[in-house]
């Protein structure tokens, strides 16, 4: 692994994104609009907005980066640039880490701007520190990127890659505890959700919102970080230097 090559990949991914200002605008604007809609729908001081606002802020980067990364990586595979890269002195981890860093930086911008809107203008309150919400959002973005890289190996077309988003993300969103508390779920659903990384990502955000930063919070963060490492390892395994 080489920091120089990792930085080269990250820089290139950001340069590609810069050529696509509409995507950047969507990455920033969509969560802002959703946060605004949520506030308007339920009201500034409603318990629903106060409960869902922070998790939405923290989970949105996961969804956005999952999509963007899986498509970008699929393009690398289908246009032959990946094959080209595999003949160069570039470790697979350099490629994956480069993507992760690039989209983490995008997530910093995204989460910061949405936070300014939500905390500053829309009246969202969290009992814990607001910067922690932004930090968790960035971690979730990296998790989304690495998972997106991994699943892109199973898509042959961009249509398939897009469908992986609802397939991989929606079940996790439904069972993470946002809609129904996990204690109130049927046992089998609680067991299934224990295997979903988003469950821990949501729990960390919910605990930040209620300033409950104890051992469970630490465990949540550890699981999210562990899943990032696992997704990178699995992603690296799907990158083959030799193919048919």
């Amino acid at each position, binding site marked *: 692994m080489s920091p*120089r*090559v990792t*930085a*080269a*990949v990250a*820089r*290139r991914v950001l*340069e*590609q994104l810069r*050529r*696509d200002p509409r995507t950047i605008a969507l990455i920033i604007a969509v969560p802002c609009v959703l946060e605004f809609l949520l506030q308007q729908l339920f009201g500034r001081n409603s318990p629903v907005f106060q409960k869902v606002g922070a998790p939405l802020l923290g989970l949105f980067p996961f969804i956005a980066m999952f999509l963007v990364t899986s498509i970008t990586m699929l393009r690398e595979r289908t*246009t*032959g*640039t990946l*094959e*080209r*890269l*595999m*003949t*160069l*002195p*570039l470790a697979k981890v350099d490629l994956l880490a480069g993507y992760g860093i690039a989209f983490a930086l995008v997530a910093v911008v995204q989460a910061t701007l949405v936070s300014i809107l939500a905390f500053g203008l829309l009246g969202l309150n969290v009992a814990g520190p607001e910067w922690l919400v932004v930090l968790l959002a960035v971690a979730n973005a990296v998790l989304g990127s690495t998972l997106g890289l991994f699943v892109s190996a199973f898509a042959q077309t961009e249509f398939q890659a897009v469908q992986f988003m609802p397939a991989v993300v929606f079940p996790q969103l439904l069972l993470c505890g946002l809609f129904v508390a996990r204690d109130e779920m049927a046992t089998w659903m609680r067991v299934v959700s224990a295997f979903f990384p988003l469950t821990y990502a949501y729990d960390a955000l919910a605990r930040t919102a209620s300033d409950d930063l104890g051992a469970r919070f630490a465990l949540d963060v550890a699981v999210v970080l562990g899943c990032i490492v696992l997704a990178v390892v699995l992603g690296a395994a799907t990158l083959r*230097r*030799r*193919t*048919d």
Partner: protein
Amino acid sequence: MSAAVRADGLHVVRGGVTVLPGLSCEVATASVTGLLGPSGSGKSTFLRAVVGVQRVAGGTVEVLGAPAGSSTLRRRVGYMTQAPSVYGDLTVEENLRFFARVLALPRDAVARAIADVSLESFTGRVVNTLSGGQRARVSLATALLGSPDLLVLDEPTVGLDPVLRRDLWELFHRIAERGATLLVSSHVMDEADRCDALLLLRDGKLLAQATPAELRGRTGVEQLDEAFLRLVEAAE
């Protein structure tokens, strides 16, 4: 002189179909060797095996004294894929800078590669806005970066105008004079005359390994595409 590439009984199966049933051949160091044959004859598959991205069912390929695909070769082998493998949403210069950074090359290497393929007036253009031939040259330029000892070029001149094609073949010979080896595939026989040595491939089998002059002598015909036909008929 030792061979830059030596394949021995190379056996490749792709998608259940045998593409190369057992190819043995050599590419001489510091030469321009043409890999010629019709589309579907296994040229790209052989080149992929040489650069080490092709899964191989049997046999060996030795490149610059090491097994093909060895990590020590990744700085010494330049590879141009058949479809331009560059980033369409980046400019010519951004593409080359990226590959140069991966190879840890100084900045002037980028300008030199761009000049080699005569794209100086397009450095700031986004690759997707270029013509097919220009895009192929960007891809070629990335393969030239770092002056590799072996250049593996998959149909680098396809779709280019005749003047540009001549310029590129002159460039290939200049590179070979500096001591590098070039393995260049083409499906048009009129490019055969521009090569020092030829590997003629058909249905994954080596029809001949010879210089253009030897090929003429062996078949008794002047036109190389006619000579190719004679060899095919003789083999059947």
